């Protein structure tokens, strides 16, 4: 299977039709189109906020998102108080 994955986001390039709806959908410009292959690339993975918009808009269900913590800038009050959850 040909796919591209980076951090939280993966795209199955075999089923991807290159329609670019995921590129349009991303509010934070994580996904770009690769001109040579006419398929999407995960250009700025750090900025992915796991909002599911790309996954929702993909007509061939080629996008997978891990549910894990969406943002490296997020902090936990539980850590501040040494509370184990």
């Amino acid at each position: 299977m040909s796919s591209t994955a980076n951090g939280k986001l993966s795209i199955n390039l075999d089923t991807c039709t290159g329609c670019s709806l995921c590129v349009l959908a991303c509010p934070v410009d994580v996904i770009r189109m690769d001109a040579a292959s006419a398929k999407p690339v995960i250009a700025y993975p750090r900025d992915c906020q796991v909002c599911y918009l790309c996954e929702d808009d993909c007509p061939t269900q080629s996008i997978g998102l891990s549910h894990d913590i969406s943002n490296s800038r997020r902090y936990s009050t539980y850590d501040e108080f040494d509370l184990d959850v």
Partner: protein
Amino acid sequence: MDILETDVLIIGGGFAGCWAALRAADLKATVTLVDKAYVSRSGASTMSGGITTCPLDGDDLDIWAEEFIVRGSYMCDQRWTYQLLEGQRERIKDYIRWNVPISRGPDGAIRRFASRGMVNVRGMQYQPKVAMRELRRQITARGARILDRLFITELLTADGEWPTRSGIAGAVGFDVYTGQFVVIKAKRTIVATGMIAMKGTHRVDNDCGDGAAMAFRAGGRLVDMEFTFGGTFNVLLKKFDFPSYNVAVAHGARLINARGERFMQQYDPERLERSELSHVVAAFAKEIIDGRGPVYVDLRHVDDSYWTDIAKLHRGGSILLTDHVPDPKTNPLAIEPTWGLWASGRSGLQIDLGGRTNLYGLLAAGSVAKNDATGTHASAGSPTAFCKVSGWHAGETAAMESRESQSPIVAQDVLKLLQEQSLAPLRRTPSPKSPDDLHDDLARLEASVVHGMILNGDRLGRMLQTTAAVTEGTTTCKAHDLHDLAKLHEARNVATCAGVVYRSALDRTESREQFFREDFPLTDPSWFCWHGATLTGSGDVVFDRKDFPTEGVRFVPPEPEAGGLGPIGAIIRGEG
């Protein structure tokens, strides 16, 4: 550079910007709608949880208005309250006409429930992503020009001064894909850039307060900025996004502490978890401080429609249906809130009933504007209602006024200077900090819910030092590509807004609503007013206080009582 002209320029393509575009186009103005992302998939609108205030024909709006006004402590313009409710009733009809999916009961009627924070006001659940897609289709059909992936860096002033003494003449920016510099001259400009927020906290990372920051630099008056502090319960098990607190509690979700106690019974026995979010977050802080944490969301009691709707209406909700988390139908799950820059109408550019700001030629709509319909208390659903209705009115005002206006003239050297300033970071030598580092520095200011809620002069002073250092950092920071350049401008805008928030918080020497200073814990009646902040030509911030209007008042505020603790202080100090 590309130079475009338009009657009405709208910056921001969420609910507010789209409704403004729709209305202005209906009134035959030439409309240009720009967004740094893709109109209909940008900002907070698509992620708004899908709850909006839902007045229908036949409802007694006096009852609804009274609840908004009283629960908002009368800190609003009551004419706006009625305008919001009457306007929203019509916009709901648009959704129905456009076949936007709305949650309905077995009889086919719209399923309405008490909005979080309210007893009488009703909200409905719908699919915001479909609503946004339909809005884009409607705008396109009306011939409005949409420019996607155009990052606006600054408002254009008629005199080339910031702050301006003449007014706003459009905006400038760059294409995020090509770097092309674009000037848009406009007879009227509407900022509709969404919430004042930081990257990292809320999964709405492109809401960076861009419009508020640009307007402020141009002389726009921001009000009640210390009420920008807000948050929601959105972090599950320290690791996952909880889909929507407002939706969950509308369906019967509870919060319990480590002892299994439904602790909100102690703080708000009537509305419990559906109390003002600030009260629930303060109660969370109190439970943690007093050693009764963690706090859990208990979904064992929600109604069946929660589980069907969450899969259908909210993709993020599916985390609850996976084996990533213990089965929420039998296990309470640890949850925590955030607290920081998260405005959604409690603060922002002050607008009149037509959407006009204090600057000639500049209007505002949606969450970048102060929502004077509900005061500092925004119930679940009222921010998106305000987006629709304020957008509608701003679009109408801008279109009508542009008929009487000439195209603005701006000196070429001003445009050249703006081009240079906008793109300069691309040509800088490598800097010690990247744009991401600057956002990290800012986000750390929101690390602690407890410290964000319990403010004091010392802490605010340190927070101001950080924003000043970030602002200074943006003047030397290198942008490696256009994506980086956009993030650098965003860091500058977040720092601008945060600076005004912290300064406003220092200026307010009392506590009320969700604002609590432990060094000024009592409510001072002289602060029952709007609190404005404006930039002067010498770079200082001047503050003003304005009384709430007496015109159109149907519900008369009681005589203010002096000396009481604000609601947050009462909860934190155990007197709630």
